């Protein structure tokens, strides 16, 4: 009574390269990356959308890749932590994470970084969060700042407790990116 395996061909554009795969339909984007493409940067912390370790950018938006079926993402553009640097040139967020020691064990770090890339873009695009002032004009860039960053980064757990350093790192990168309109910082360790 061998059950049939349901598999499908998909093409994922991962870090700019087209990758053609045949996936068991139960395969998540996370498992496709880790087990079929040997891109182990995206981490599996829970496999249930509860920790953010698997965060990648899908068509420019940050998503928990453990919650996405690969078969449903045929044709998607996916950026993983391996795709953030420009050759030997690290992404400003990667530099900031090193400088601020915004990681310890490093297991949540790829998810934090991909999430932070998404956060900076969301703020620049004027997408409000739960802590954005209600009177903030829609469509205008939301100024960075500790409260905004903390709120938006709260889907990425870090059991090593690097949060305050992560906020500093994201804030540094936001400052570098935004120049003026940068919301400034409060508290933190450094």
């Amino acid at each position, binding site marked *: 009574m*061998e*059950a*049939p395996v349901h598999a499908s061909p998909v093409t994922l554009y991962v870090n700019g390269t087209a990758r053609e795969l045949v996936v*068991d339909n*139960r*395969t998540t984007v996370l*498992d496709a990356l*880790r*087990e079929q493409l*040997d*891109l*182990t*940067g*995206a*981490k*599996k*912390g*829970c*496999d*249930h959308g*509860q*920790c953010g*370790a698997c965060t990648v950018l899908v068509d420019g938006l940050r998503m928990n890749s453990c919650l996405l079926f690969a078969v449903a993402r045929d044709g998607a553009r996916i950026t*993983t*932590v*391996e795709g*953030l640097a420009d050759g030997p040139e690290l992404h400003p967020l*990667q530099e900031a*994470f*090193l*400088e601020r*020691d915004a*990681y*310890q*064990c*490093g*297991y949540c*770090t*790829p998810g934090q*970084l991909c999430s932070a890339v998404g956060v900076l873009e969301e703020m620049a695009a004027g997408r409000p969060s739960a802590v954005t002032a209600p009177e903030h004009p829609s469509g205008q860039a939301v100024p960075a700042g*500790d*409260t905004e*960053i*903390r*709120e938006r*980064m*709260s889907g990425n*757990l*870090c*059991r*090593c*407790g*690097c*949060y*305050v350093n992560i*906020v500093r790192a994201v804030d540094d990168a936001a400052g570098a990116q935004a120049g003026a309109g940068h919301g400034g910082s409060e*508290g*933190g*360790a*450094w």
Partner: protein
Amino acid sequence: MNTADRTGEGVVRLEGRAKVTGAARYAVEHPLDGCLHAWPVPAGIARGRITAIDTERALAEPGTVAVLSHENAPRLGEPEDPELFVLQSPRVAYRGQYVALAVAETPQAARAAAAAVRLEYAAEPHDVTLTGGHPGLYAPETVNGGYPTDRERGDFDMAFAASEFRLDTRYRIPPLHNHPMEPHASTAVWEGPRLRVYDSAQGAHAVQSELAALFGLEPERITVVSEHVGGGFGSKGTPRPQVVLACLAARETGRPVKLAVPRHQMAQIVGHRAATEQRVRIGADGAGQISALAHEVVTYSSTVREFTEQAATPSRTMYASPHSRTTHRVTRLDVPTPSWMRAPGECPGMFALESAMDELAVTTGIDPVEIRLRNDTAKEPDSGHPFSSRRLADCLREGARRFGWEGRDPRPGTRAEGRLLIGTGVAASGYPVYVAPARATARAEAAGGYRIEVDATDIGTGARTVLAQIAAEALAAPLDRIRIGIGNSDLPKGPVAGGSMGTASWGWAVHKACRALLRTLAEHSGPLPEEGLSAHADTSDDVAARSDAYARRAFGAQFAEVQVDMDTGETRLRRLLGVFAAGRVLNARTARSQFIGGMTMGVSMALTEHSTMDAEFGDFAERDLAMYHVAVNADVPDVQAYWLDEEDQELNPMGSKGIGEIGIVGTAAAVTSAVHHATGVRVRELPVLPESLLPGLAEWRRPAVV
């Protein structure tokens, strides 16, 4: 020479680039041809026997390669930890214990096969509930860490009865789960007669020796690699069942096998901090001087293995206490086996002791900082030995200054912002200074530069970097001339990354090997031989020769500010500041992260982490990260850590004390003391929940002005 390379400087982690680019490979991330995936099957009863296993449907799942259980798994040799004796018997000791293993071509197939395994049990009545008067309570021979179970000094009962102020309180801490972000994970490969294992572990040698016993192999035939480890917090300090299962499956199938423990199975399988009930009694005079201190701990272990959280031990060492009683009682329940979690004993024990100190301060009307200063002691009360260094008072004073403690109105409920009640609290921190023998090799390479080898583990502490700094300093060489190998059982043996003793232990061996190498080099003339020149070091004698006339301990003080919503009872941290005295700090950047990381976990313990043992099913109710809440970024707005210079000749050549655990010690008491200051409600059972505060908040609640 670049002084920034030396110890003390905030060198960026050597593996930092690998970690931020995703290049660092963890235990199940090594590409291996033909690697299979394994998925464990947990027991569905809390106690009893498996009577039948039906694997037919599981084996029929496409992609299934094998299903292992006690009926067909290879027999194992006796391990030191009986938790590792997996799939050897039909007995079930706790719900969630592994009883079978599905092995398949893909993770999807393995999971489906595991779900298709059918088990029948003969269940027996179980008991999973800890009570203060549990009939099974007994005095273990020793408690975790090898400490004595009970200690008595003076005449506690007499002194307590005669005290002007008497405090008698009980504190409860629920089970707590380590939940490192990388689940416990292993990849096993049999290469002929050799076994190669990539394991997410805090000590490769510890894994090697257990696997040697289990599989009847010479340790030299086993290589355990733990190069990058995604956190552990004690739970990876001993090998866990998944590594044995991976090895069994790889042997059975003749192919490499990887196994990552599913998150929702971790609470049962990887160890946890057992719940404790702690009674603290303090007798003091009108000046707040303690004369009598009793700290009595009740906890549990599983039926598999005795583990007794040594929570009363801080009371043996923190404060002057002429008359003292400290005891531990443990009972064996049908529950998962507890084990190490960051600062075992110290962390839960100091929640109770430091909460009681705050209560004593309130009762006597003495400032909480001041009352600790008045009970400071230059000698460890229990041993009578002087401390090799103890700057608790300086930590308290410096913390108070930085935090802005002075002028604090001690009355509860006196600060409000709108509908938020604001309060501040303080607690002391402490952690023993441990050290264990280690070996290391230092080699001057013919091509130039040095190679340092030691089986240390960097679980996120920065050990790799600090050890390279120690070598650079000992060799008087720039850091970029040092190449360091760690995290591999083929390297010279080092102890586990635990007890905050890693840097002291491995570092001592590295330091010694480097010094020996310098002597060898001085005697050598001409060019180096092709294989370079090596020196080996073993610190067994040095560690044994340490004077036992001293008590060695790190200290600190933490100050918390919280806000409590008077309508909802929600407590949020506003800021947390710690000052520590932990010997010489070897890398400012990573040390700060260690302190802050511990403090952050302490906030999590105080405000969000909660686990419940379900009496009916013998299961932890909060098994995954949606149910078991660890603090998120928005919960931890402002954490600052500082440290004082501390010279101590009685430690090790680096003059360092461990810093990995002290940050979590005392934090929860600082938070609950701040909650008391904000609301007048004393929370003696963690975590702080709205339902504990709401009845007491009515007093402060003012009608909302609309």
